[in-house]
């Protein structure tokens, strides 16, 4: 055998050996990679099934609070605007005391009070409290419409309207601007909110 042939055979032996070794390592690396990937997938799934219920609770709690806080912020903003409208309405009423609308209300209120106490009879004196500014108007109206009713007028510390009571102060007729505001506030809040925000007040 020539030395060239021997050399060629040696090279062939090593080529095959290298090829085999490479295949062995490549297969091992591929198997190892697949084993790890499978384990990771399994681990993710196991973890997911284990913590999914907790995640759901966590999500509901955090997002639920955000929605609640958000709604609260919207309600507060709406309340601020509605309150602003109420304050403005009070200012308007204060400025309206010379108007026909207010005088009409005052006259109606006095009429209702007189009707309310009509069972008492003409002898007993009724006390009428009103804002100082309205006293003269009320006196005039009484002279004009209820000359037989005995009314005594006193200054009241409220924006407008009247409070009427019998002399024993047992029966009282309230019709002040303040009491009307308070009595109507819930209904007016709804009305004003639906006007201002179209969708009404958020509950």
């Amino acid at each position, binding site marked *: *055998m020539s*030395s060239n042939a*021997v050399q060629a055979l*040696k090279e062939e*032996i*090593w080529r095959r*050996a290298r090829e*085999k*070794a*490479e295949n*062995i*390592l490549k*297969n*091992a*690396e591929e*198997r*190892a*990679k697949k*084993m790890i990937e499978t*384990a990771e997938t399994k*681990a993710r799934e*196991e*973890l997911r099934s*284990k*913590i999914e219920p*907790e*995640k759901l609770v*966590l*999500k509901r709690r*955090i*997002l639920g*609070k*955000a929605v609640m*806080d*958000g709604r609260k*912020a*919207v309600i507060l*903003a*709406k309340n*601020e*605007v509605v309150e602003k*409208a*109420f304050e*403005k*309405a009070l200012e*308007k*009423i204060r400025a309206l005391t010379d108007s026909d*609308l*207010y005088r*009409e*209300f005052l006259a109606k209120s006095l009429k209702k009070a007189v009707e309310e106490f009509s069972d008492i009879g003409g002898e007993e004196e009724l006390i009428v409290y009103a804002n100082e500014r309205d006293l003269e108007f009320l006196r005039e109206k009484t002279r004009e419409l209820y000359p037989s009713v005995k009314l005594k007028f006193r200054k009241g510390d409220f924006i407008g309207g009247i409070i009427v009571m019998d002399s024993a102060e047992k029966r009282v007729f309230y019709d002040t601007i303040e009491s*009307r505001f308070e*009595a*109507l506030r819930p209904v*007016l809040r709804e*009305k*004003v909110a639906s*006007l*201002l*925000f179209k969708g009404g007040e958020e509950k």
Partner: protein
Amino acid sequence: MSLTSLLLEEKKAMLYVQEAREKAQRILQEAERKVEEILHATQSAEKIREELESYRREVEKEAEKILREYEEKAEKIRSIPEDAIEKAAEIIVEEVLKHEF
């Protein structure tokens, strides 16, 4: 002489392949160790805490977005035009003065 040298070369090559087999074995053993480690980690309370913490951060971002949207809505409500409030005030005045109890 040349046959002997060829046999020697063949033996060396077999040894080389054997080393590759041993290395492959070590690779697989290492992979098995990692698999154990990975599967064991799912049982660990620490891992569960980490996962939940990371999820919590994700949900909190979503919550911040929701809250921001509501706050923008609230701001829009506050900036309602004055004439609308004026109109509402007029309705209140009218109701207060004209309502029949």
